């Protein structure tokens, strides 16, 4: 049985997930029963009463109030049970406990940005303690996105007009995938994130060390990690092909024509200005849609990215 559970659903990893799974399998059993009932009856009638078969036919009833009442009330009772079971699960998932760790989430075209109460900011990745409730307060900067963690069985649209919230309490340590489920354009399927559920101490030490991303990693390699982790790859290709933004292939040191007609050379300063204030110097022929990374990237991260771009010959 557990092998079937693995096949059908990702392993349940949050407190809420368990009742969602039990309701899911109850519904699966119920549906299988009714489907087999209908299929079996149909098959039996089609074979037994096929034209020309010698079998007692006589006057069959064209309506039978008792039977019709029966097969209306039984499904009605069943669906009312299912409703309350589902409603109970939904309410308990919708109400975050008071002492939950609150993380601010900002969804923008094609990346998730997180901010911890102590000001630590990360992109597309968060680390949370196991066994403690975590509450996400979410807003979007452009269109509607939707925060979905399959292994926690939770999902909530992220609206541009107001805050929506979501909470979970992880039971299984490990990495749990975040996906966007509300269609939001070209990078909709690239808005992937990950939740690392770790023990309390590891979480606390990670928090103090300011995220500790890329410790001891050479700059270029750290730049490549940031290139994927911070979603640069969604708009800037490495092979020269044109996406939402210009490709990084061979641009370092080259003259670049801007949309306002000026020409600048793509040196470290230009790259740094483009990372922190992307809207000021947009390359000709591209839209000013790049979000700013001001406050999101420390000095080490910016240097790593520039080194990585330099390497793209």
């Amino acid at each position, binding site marked *: 049985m557990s092998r079937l559970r693995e096949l059908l659903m990702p392993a349940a990893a949050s407190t809420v997930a368990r009742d969602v799974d039990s309701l899911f399998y109850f519904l699966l059993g119920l549906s299988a029963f009714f489907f087999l009932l209908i299929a079996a009856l149909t098959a039996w009638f089609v074979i037994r009463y096929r034209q020309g078969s010698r079998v007692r036919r006589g006057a069959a009833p064209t309506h039978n109030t008792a039977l019709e009442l029966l097969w209306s009330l039984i499904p009605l009772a069943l669906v009312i049970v299912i409703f309350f079971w589902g*409603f*109970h699960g939904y*309410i*308990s998932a*919708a*109400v975050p406990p008071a002492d939950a760790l609150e993380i601010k989430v900002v969804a923008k075209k094609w990346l998730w940005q997180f901010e911890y109460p102590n000001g630590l900011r990360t992109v597309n990745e968060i680390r949370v303690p196991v066994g403690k409730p975590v509450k996400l307060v979410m807003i979007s900067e452009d269109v509607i996105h939707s925060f979905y963690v399959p292994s926690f069985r939770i999902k909530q649209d992220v609206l541009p007009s107001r805050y929506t*919230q979501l909470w979970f309490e992880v039971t299984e340590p490990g990495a749990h995938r975040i996906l966007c489920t509300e269609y939001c354009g070209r990078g909709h399927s690239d808005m992937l994130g990950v939740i690392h559920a770790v023990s309390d101490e590891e979480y606390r030490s990670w928090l103090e060390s300011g995220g500790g991303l890329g410790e001891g990693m050479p700059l270029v390699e750290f730049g490549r990690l940031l290139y994927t982790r911070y979603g640069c790859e969604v708009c800037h290709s490495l092979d020269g092909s044109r996406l939402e933004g210009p490709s990084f292939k061979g641009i370092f040191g080259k003259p670049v024509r801007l949309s306002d007609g000026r020409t600048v050379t793509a040196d470290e300063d230009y790259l740094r200005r483009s990372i922190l204030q992307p809207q000021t110097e947009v390359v000709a022929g591209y839209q000013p849609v790049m979000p700013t990374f001001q406050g999101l990237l420390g000095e080490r991260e910016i240097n790593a990215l520039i080194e990585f771009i330099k390497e793209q010959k």
Partner: protein
Amino acid sequence: MKAHSAAERAPRTYLAVLSALLVLTVITVVAAGVHFGSAFVNVVIALTIASAKASLVALYFMHLRHERPINAIIFVVGLAMLGIFLMLCFLDTLAREPVEPGLTAQLADWAVRISSRILSAS
């Protein structure tokens, strides 16, 4: 059809209906100036006057009173669907605050919050 037998007095009926409509228009303009408790009550009054005028037009000018009932049924079903759409959209917009744990506490809380919001709203 019944309508033909009422043919002679029709002009007088239409005149009576028109004057009633004009009077109701005056009333609605005057009523808008008076402040009845909350803005919500004013809206309800304005809409009831408007509905009175609309039903006068529908019953007499549009002959719903003395014709086959199918037309009136179509009209009423249309209004019912509009009512459902209005009601459920309003209900959703009103009840959007975060919720309390526990089913009964939750339902009680909603009832209190929505009624208070409606009375004080708009």
